């Protein structure tokens, strides 16, 4: 029968291998997705469906940690522990620690992957606006707006006629979630700051929540969303029209969160 030290070493080695395999799989998923984007002539949504399949497969690796612990490791550790040594309880905590850590890495990886794929898609699709489009009345070259991803009225500078430019689907898709994914990656450091404060808050009991910690969270929360929406305007000029509405929505979400987390559902302390 294996000793306590041997069992712990074997268990640690198993967890290290799982983590390595998980990270290697994420790397392989990124390579596959980036390659598929080019091979499909920048069909972002097909690549996105592939990623969902890969994500499900990679997430299954985490399930192996639980299963191995329950089926093999814990019974062996319990068998050799005496009445005063519950070392297996500490070993069991490694399951949730690693699972949570891998889950967090997956979330960050997804933001990175979507951001990179979207940037590649954007760099390709934005060139559609550089193609030669001519006025339907006099044939002069028209200038297409590169920050408006829908049909546009384009006035010919030569004959003053108003033309209607109807872009191909790929150009319109830039305005869907492509831009948001690029900005989400760009604003990730600000999102991290928000997560740090949120973690601080979650470690406190409700009674320990002070105005100071909530104000701190409010500051990083609005700093993130204001930056996000302002960055969006740089890419999409028509996003300016909904800026105030977007901020108002986030304000409402913040208040709802504060009401449910800090107070009871009726908003009474």
């Amino acid at each position, binding site marked *: 029968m294996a000793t306590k030290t041997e069992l712990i070493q074997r268990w640690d080695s198993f967890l290290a291998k799982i983590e390595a395999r998980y990270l290697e799989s994420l790397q392989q998923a990124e390579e596959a997705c980036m390659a598929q984007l080019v091979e499909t002539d920048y069909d972002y949504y097909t690549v996105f469906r592939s990623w969902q399949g890969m994500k499900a497969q990679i997430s299954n690796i985490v399930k192996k940690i639980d299963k191995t612990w329950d089926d093999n490791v814990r019974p062996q550790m319990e068998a050799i522990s005496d009445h005063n040594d519950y070392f297996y309880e500490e070993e069991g905590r490694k399951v949730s620690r690693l699972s949570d850590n891998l889950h967090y890495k997956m979330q960050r990886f997804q933001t990175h992957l979507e951001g990179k794929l979207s940037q590649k898609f954007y760099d390709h699709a934005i060139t559609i606006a550089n193609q030669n489009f001519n006025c339907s009345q006099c044939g002069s070259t028209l200038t297409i*707006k590169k920050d408006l991803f829908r049909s546009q009225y384009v006035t010919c500078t030569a004959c003053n006629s*108003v033309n*209607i430019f109807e872009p191909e*689907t790929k150009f319109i898709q830039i305005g869907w979630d492509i831009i948001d994914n690029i900005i989400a990656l760009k604003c990730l450091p600000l999102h991290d700051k928000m997560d740090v404060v949120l973690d601080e808050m979650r470690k406190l009991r409700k009674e320990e929540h002070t105005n100071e910690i909530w104000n701190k969270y409010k500051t990083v929360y609005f700093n993130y969303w204001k930056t996000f929406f302002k960055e969006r305007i740089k890419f999409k000029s028509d996003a300016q029209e909904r800026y105030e509405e977007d901020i108002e929505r986030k304000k409402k979400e913040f208040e709802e969160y504060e009401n449910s987390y800090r107070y009871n559902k009726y908003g009474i302390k």
Partner: protein
Amino acid sequence: MANPFEKIIKNSEKTKKQWDSEKKDSTVDAKQCNTCGAPRPKKTNLTTCDYCGTRFMSIDEKITPDL
């Protein structure tokens, strides 16, 4: 070593939905008045022909181009 996700890649391409509404090319066109044949000039109300007054849209609001 081959990428372990090749099968998923192939499946997603095989099961791709073809959308009828997908537009493969961008187009440029100009609305011309059915009555007098004039195009719409810049800085004018796009709901009405600026030359003969024919209404293109049955709304009272004024619409001007983005550019």
